[in-house]
């Protein structure tokens, strides 16, 4: 699990460390340059001073007098520290007249001025002046310089590094404090039961977290809405289940009381019809649950609607003939769309079933599929009772039954059709049937 606090702390400290190192690096380079200039000037100054005091040099040359305090230098083979220089003087015979460190056999350089030279594996820097009667050469190993610069850089970086733990602690506390609203929100959510969906308070929430709380609140609202719909549906479903169950209960009691065989036969038939009705309702409820847009996860595949509708119409042929209903089918054009084939089959079946159910004997039901410019239209029209314009909106509500119809519908058929159509972004329209009689339901699937 990632922790914002730890992540921020580590990344900030890393950035600080990197920053410190960059600053130190720059300072080191700058200081080195400055030091080089300084030391070079130093070399030059010494050389020039020696030149000007040629008399002193002559004196040194004549007497080979070596100052007492310089005795120790005689045997020294290395120059340590930045304040120490190797001073060499040659006379006009190119004889080494003087060396501050006789043990160091640094060669005489030809070029005047500042020169870099490798000697015994180390880099040196020298300043050379050729005068009329000799050569003055002041040299210094570069290592002495860099060690000094390094020392300076170290002195610089230590306090920088030392501030890191303090900064780290402060950052840790500051992040913790700024994350406090998140903790408050999560605590508020934690305390809730699964049914309390009131919006979270946005008081005292930092702007960065506001969108999160806003989205959460919107989600809670949507959840509350669908929960309400679900509750209403469950209540309605329970209510609707009672009716066929009451019928079965009564039919069973009537059967028990039957005295003659004929009465018994009749009661049995009614009981069977009652059970059939309950089964139908249960199936429709299950279908509706399965066709809910949120529940549909089946893949969309190319579906030939003409073929599908023809197949469904055929399945109803026997039922239509039994009820002496003239059932017809027609299709036009290439009627392939992409969709959930199971859902589309249920949609077509429900429309045909409804049409046959609400059309009296002797009527007609027509199923048509037609490809238009922008949409594929499925139309199921009947010569039945028709749906009054005032009720055309409500027939898609669950459990809504048109008043005055005695057919034992569940009131779910068109609700299921609507759910499937919505899932396919299709629009449904209810119109008058042919010659103004009956009903025509058109489902338009956008192409």
């Amino acid at each position, binding site marked *: 699990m990632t922790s914002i606090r730890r992540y921020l702390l580590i990344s900030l400290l890393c950035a600080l460390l990197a920053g410190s190192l960059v600053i130190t690096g720059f300072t080191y380079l700058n200081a080195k340059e400055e030091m080089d200039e300084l030391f070079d000037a130093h070399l030059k100054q010494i050389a020039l001073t020696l030149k000007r005091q040629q008399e002193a040099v002559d004196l040194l040359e004549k007497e080979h007098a070596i100052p007492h305090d310089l005795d120790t230098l005689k045997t020294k083979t290395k120059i340590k520290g930045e304040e120490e220089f190797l001073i060499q003087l040659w006379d006009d015979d190119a004889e080494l007249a003087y060396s501050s460190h006789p043990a160091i056999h640094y060669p005489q350089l030809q070029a005047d001025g500042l020169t870099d030279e490798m000697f015994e594996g180390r880099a040196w820097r020298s300043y050379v002046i050729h005068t009329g009667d000799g050569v003055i050469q002041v040299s210094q190993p570069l290592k002495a310089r860099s060690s000094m610069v390094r020392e300076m850089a170290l002195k610089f970086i230590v306090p920088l590094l030392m501030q890191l733990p303090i900064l780290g602690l402060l950052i840790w506390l500051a992040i913790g404090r700024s994350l406090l609203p998140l903790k408050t929100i999560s605590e508020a959510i934690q305390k809730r039961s699964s049914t309390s969906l009131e919006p979270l308070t946005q008081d005292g929430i930092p702007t960065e977290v506001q969108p999160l709380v806003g989205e959460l609140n919107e989600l809670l609202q949507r959840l509350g809405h669908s929960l309400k719909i679900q509750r209403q549906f469950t209540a309605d479903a329970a209510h609707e289940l009672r009716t066929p169950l*009451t*019928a079965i209960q*009564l039919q069973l*009691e*009537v059967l028990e009381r039957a005295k003659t065989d004929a009465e018994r036969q009749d009661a049995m038939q*009614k009981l069977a019809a009652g059970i059939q009705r309950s089964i139908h309702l249960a199936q429709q409820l299950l279908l509706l649950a399965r066709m809910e847009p949120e529940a549909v996860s089946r893949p969309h595949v190319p579906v030939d609607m003409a073929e599908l509708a023809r197949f469904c119409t055929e399945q109803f042929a026997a039922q239509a003939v039994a009820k002496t209903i003239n059932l017809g089918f027609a299709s036009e054009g290439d009627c392939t769309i992409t969709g959930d084939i199971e859902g589309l089959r249920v949609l077509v079946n429900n429309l045909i079933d409804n049409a046959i159910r609400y059309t009296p004997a002797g009527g007609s039901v027509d199923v048509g599929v037609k490809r238009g410019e922008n949409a594929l239209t499925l139309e199921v029209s009947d010569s039945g009772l028709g749906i009054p314009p005032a009720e055309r909106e409500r027939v898609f509500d669950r459990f809504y039954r048109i008043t*005055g119809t*005695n057919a*034992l519908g569940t009131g779910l058929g068109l609700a299921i059709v609507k759910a499937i159509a919505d899932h396919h972004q299709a629009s449904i329209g209810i119109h008058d049937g042919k010659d103004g009689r009956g009903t025509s339901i058109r489902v338009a699937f956008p192409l």
Partner: protein
Amino acid sequence: MRLLLVEDDPMIGESLRHALKGDGYAVDWVTDGDTAAESLEIEQYDLVLLDLGLPKQSGIEVLQGVRKRKDAIPVLILTARDAVSDRVIGLDAGADDYLVKPFALAEVEARIRALLRRKNGQAEPVMRCGDATLNPATKELSYGGKAEVLSAREYALMHCLMEKPGAVLSRPQLEEKIYGWNEEVASNAVEVLIHQLRKKYGTDIIRNIRGLGYMVAKQ
């Protein structure tokens, strides 16, 4: 006993009507609120079985209409709505009893009997007129040391007469109480029933007041 059954579900309505007819009630069955309200205005019923979720006019509206007319007819609500608030609304609107679906037929029948008993100011479950005792639960009539279970129609006739002992009921009045709509009534149907009862219990059980009708003696 004439009942109005208001129920829009064809299966429930059919079964209830069938069963109640078997109990000796004359049952008129309507399937919507408007027809129920009209029937209640025109006809005289002894009791109403009222569903609440009805087309055109809800059961509660029908009930309110009845009570507005100061009609004290017993009303038994039969509904799928089981919330306490629904029951309260139903009873407060003037219902005498409330049964939630799914219910057992036997319970509906018992509640109908109880409501009718109360309507007639009767405390005892059995009806008594002098020597005659009629048990609505079993349809058993005992008179003159003889006890027998009556047929549905015989019971219905006896019940009508014993409800108002001493009162004379004409043949059409009796027919109306015993037969529902759409029922074929032979012109001598009432006479046939009276004949059957007299054969079982003797002539005295039902008195004939010529030119007026029939009655059972108070004592």
